[in-house]
């Protein structure tokens, strides 16, 4: 499944069947703390650093990341969210719907943008996000942070900060939540119950 990490693409009538939990809530939390310190180290502090979460999967963890960043350095660390539906390259190939309204109320010119998503897979979501960000001003740098890098890239995109590298099969599904990371499969069912 080409873009299985995003809930928007999961058709109703199919259900996520969890197989293995690969991170628990504490491990997710520790990974976020480590990523926060790596961001501060790489950028020699957090001046001009802003965090942008990709709707919807990246947003809850990005919010937590911002809270941690504000604890470890006395900096404002503005936070925004971005929905990339209108920038995707697979419009027409499959149903594409915006999930949430973009909320990015500041100019990115001169800032260091840390783009956060829950799962990095083909890289197409990140490509769309980069195009969307470019319209909001010329950031001095864009860095990519993800909780899980599951491989299978289709574009030359590489994360700067990774919670966990997780080898997967293409047809598997990875679900990231604050209480852990689970790997499993989509199964066809007869009803609309399921995933969320």
């Amino acid at each position, binding site marked *: 499944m080409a873009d299985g990490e995003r809930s928007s693409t999961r*058709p109703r009538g*199919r259900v996520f069947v969890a197989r293995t939990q690969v991170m628990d809530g504490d491990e997710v939390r520790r990974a976020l703390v480590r990523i926060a310190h790596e961001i501060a180290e790489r950028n020699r502090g957090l001046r001009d650093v802003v965090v942008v979460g990709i709707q919807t999967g990246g947003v809850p963890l990005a919010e937590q990341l911002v809270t941690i960043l504000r604890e470890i350095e006395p900096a404002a660390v503005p936070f925004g969210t971005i929905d990339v539906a209108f920038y995707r390259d697979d419009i027409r190939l499959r149903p594409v719907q915006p999930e949430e309204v973009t909320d990015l109320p500041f100019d990115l010119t001169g800032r260091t943008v840390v783009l956060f998503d829950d799962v990095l897979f083909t890289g197409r979501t990140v490509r769309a996000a980069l195009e969307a960000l470019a319209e909001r001003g010329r950031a001095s740098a864009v860095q990519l942070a993800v909780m899980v890098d599951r491989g299978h890239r289709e574009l030359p995109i590489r994360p700067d900060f990774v919670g966990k590298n997780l080898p997967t099969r293409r047809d598997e599904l990875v679900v990231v939540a604050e209480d852990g990371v689970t790997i499993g499969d989509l199964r066809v069912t007869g009803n609309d119950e399921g995933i969320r």
Partner: protein
Amino acid sequence: MSAPDTTDTDPSVTGEDFLVGRRAPAPRHLLSIADLDRDGILEIMRLSDAFAEVAERPIPKVPALRGRTVATVFMEPSTRTRLSFETAAKRLSADVMTFTAATSSSVKGESLRDTVETIDAMGIDAMVIRHHASGAPLRVTDWVGASVINAGDGTHEHPTQALLDCYTIREALTARHGEVPADLGGLRIAIVGDVKHSRVARSNVLAFSALGAEVVLVAPPTLMPASLEGWPVTATGDLDAILGELDVIYLLRIQSERLGEVLLPSLDEYHWRYGLTRARADALKRDALVMHPGPMIRGVEISPEVADLPASLVTRQVRNGVVTRMAVLFHLLGSGAM
């Protein structure tokens, strides 16, 4: 006519179909509000929210329909609807072709069929059509491969006007209550004026009632449709009797160009009986909303001073026209497999 997207319930659509991009066909045309059910209208509302945010950006444009072409084919005079559609298409990065009857071969006698087939042959993805004949857009769907969007056909329908009106009411309710309402349930909406000749009224009756509002039609007997059978509405000739119970008063334009016979004694008398005068505006509920699809004829449907009151949503309607039409274009051209 387009079939609703049945993927969720159609057992013949398997997970494997989804994986390789085979899917039940997405809705192709928008000819009538009846092509969308309640869920379809609410889907357009949600999409419009996303495009309203785009409209606020420094660069109010997204690449969603890059490489696609939208033709506007207007066989009847219109400025705002055509500009609204063309602006919407451009903000989605689509290319736009404009056809207006006055500057084209139709004045040389070319038939509608030849005209639309010619435009279709240039390679377009959507055709936005306005025509003086009711049902013309439906006929056009037989002749062209593009998605057809009805931008007003005779006295039949004007679905995107109804969608932008629903969105405008929803937006006003959101501002009032601080949260987005599920639908328009509980609202009492009067549609006042030349209901008989109004495609706006026809689309709005369907849209408002699909979203749970109660619709009452107000018109002199000569401008009321001969039969209201099958319409989920009530009707009255007495506007003053119901003013105090209305949440929305929707004024229609008196279309002098469609009044082929003498149906009104005079425009002054119409204003006196059915126009929104200052006295009638004062008799409305304090938070009642005043709407008009434009162009407003001040002194007929509405008094000049009332048109400028804060309760009037007329300029919001125009602004929301672009946003809602972006949603319609994206819904038909961008959000599913074609």
